[in-house]
């Protein structure tokens, strides 16, 4: 069974005037199909307004489909009785780290989710300790969130989700408000959780260099999935990516331009190391 199954999903934002008449309909998601297997690391790419955040909110049952459906671990998100179990199964991390931390002490914030689930006190402590350790924030357990850097706050937010023992984490542009170091921290944490704890990860972003480790990448534009495949498959099509207002990672683009200029390089180079190896091969 798939962890997450999205079938023919359509979602419309309906704008109404003062009398309640429909003024305009904006299709934020337009007939999207998506399957995510357990333990996968999925990245969803898209420029602003491509509908990627709206899609994320469907997985956590914050928004409901206008048409089609979303199933999390076999549970239909449109059915109200599944609501809390879905939210526990698929945790969600948001963009702004400040606006999702509730408590004034790090460990209490991580404990917030388990408290809501009605987990016994002793177990809350165990879970808090384990999740803080998993994101490498154990030494800050008694700090105030206001004293942490953006990347650290985001890791606390991830720990808060991990403490609920989800099978899947949806991260909605978790690095959009962070500096380059914070971004690296957060992505490294997410990768590690994916590998060590076998948590399914759905990473929504518009930073290309964050998706090169993903198992599968979906590119969205105007509410539709335009491209899907492994990062390597996606990044061989640099021209197409640019059409969707996205940029390939710098190295990929450099290799692509070199190739166009006549250098004999393979397709879809993703990291600096790969490019170096490829160039070394040519020199021989």
């Amino acid at each position, binding site marked *: 069974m798939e962890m997450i199954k999205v079938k023919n999903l359509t979602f419309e934002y309906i704008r109404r005037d003062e009398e309640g008449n429909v003024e305009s309909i904006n299709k934020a998601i337009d007939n999207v199909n998506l399957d995510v297997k357990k333990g996968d690391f999925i990245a969803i790419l898209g420029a602003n307004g491509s509908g990627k955040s709206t899609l994320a909110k469907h997985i*956590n049952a*914050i928004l409901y489909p206008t048409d089609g459906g979303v199933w999390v671990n076999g549970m239909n998100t449109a059915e109200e009785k599944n609501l*809390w179990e879905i*939210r*526990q199964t698929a*945790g*969600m991390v*948001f963009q*702004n780290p*400040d*606006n*999702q*931390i*509730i*408590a*004034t*002490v790090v*460990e*209490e914030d991580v*404990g*917030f*989710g*388990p*408290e*809501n*689930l*009605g*987990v*016994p*006190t002793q177990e*809350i*402590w165990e879970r*808090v300790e384990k999740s803080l350790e998993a994101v490498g924030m154990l030494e800050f357990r008694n700090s105030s*969130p*206001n004293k942490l850097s953006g990347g650290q706050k985001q890791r606390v937010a991830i720990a*808060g*989700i991990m403490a*609920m023992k989800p099978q899947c984490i949806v991260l909605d542009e978790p690095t959009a408000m962070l500096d380059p170091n914070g971004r690296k921290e957060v992505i490294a944490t997410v990768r590690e959780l994916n590998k060590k704890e076998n948590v399914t990860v759905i990473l929504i972003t518009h930073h290309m260099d964050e998706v090169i480790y993903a198992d599968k990448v979906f590119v969205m534009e105007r509410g539709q999935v335009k491209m899907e495949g492994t990062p390597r498959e996606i990044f061989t099509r640099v021209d197409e990516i640019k059409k969707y207002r996205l940029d390939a990672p710098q190295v990929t683009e450099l290799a692509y331009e070199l190739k166009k200029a006549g250098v004999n390089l393979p397709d879809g180079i993703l990291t600096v190391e790969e490019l170096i190896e490829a160039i070394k091969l040519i020199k021989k």
Partner: protein
Amino acid sequence: MIRDITIGQYYPSDSILHRLDPRVKLIGTFLFIVSLFLFDSLYGYIAVAVFLVTIIKLSKVPFRFIAKGMKAIVVLMLFMAFFNLFFTPGNTIFQIWIIKITDNGLRQAIFMGIRLIFLILGSSLMTFTTTPNQLTDGLEKIMKPLNRIKVPVHEISMMMSIALRFIPILLEETDKIMKAQMARGADFESGGVLKRAKSLIPLLVPLFVSAFRRANDLAMAMEARCYRGGDGRTKMKPLRYQNRDYLAYTCVLAYFAIVIALGILENRLF
């Protein structure tokens, strides 16, 4: 200038007072404040002073730190002293023109002043030794019976703790907006009261917009973490009375009994 405002100043230390259950401190403070109005003799003041000094010593909060907090109420004290001094009827002991000081006025001014100092000392000692979180936790537990008459106790305490979490964030934001508006030529400092109040509009509008946006985000994040009100919730740090808490209750009650006894002795209560 905004950074000077501190709310719920906590003085981190490891005294017995810090470790007490917040409920003991809340109820103790309440009894202390009530006790201040149950006597009117010198012995009463001495009893309160002894009690207060003992507590301050136990709290390990340096006296200078406490005294700093008293600066804020100097104006209020002068104001009160002024009215008591000049407008209390009684035997005149000093008079210039229509201004006269009576013996009762003098007595009232001094004793009310001392009472006010005691009151502020006692209650600020509670905030010095209790983190805001513990306070809201304690309040929630004490108010729990009110749930039966449909007071949303859990929701109120959740709102309080969220407010505490966001005060520094919003202060920082105010600072940022203020600087941004000043960079574009906004003037917050000159002009009369009306002009100054008007000049705050370009500060308040973006601040409110951002506060609402934050509230919206936070509500979504809380729901995504399965928050659904107080029912069925467990606590990571539940409040449980220890032996020291019962001891503290005994001390506070003994103090309260002494003050009442003093009050009865001077025939004030009955």
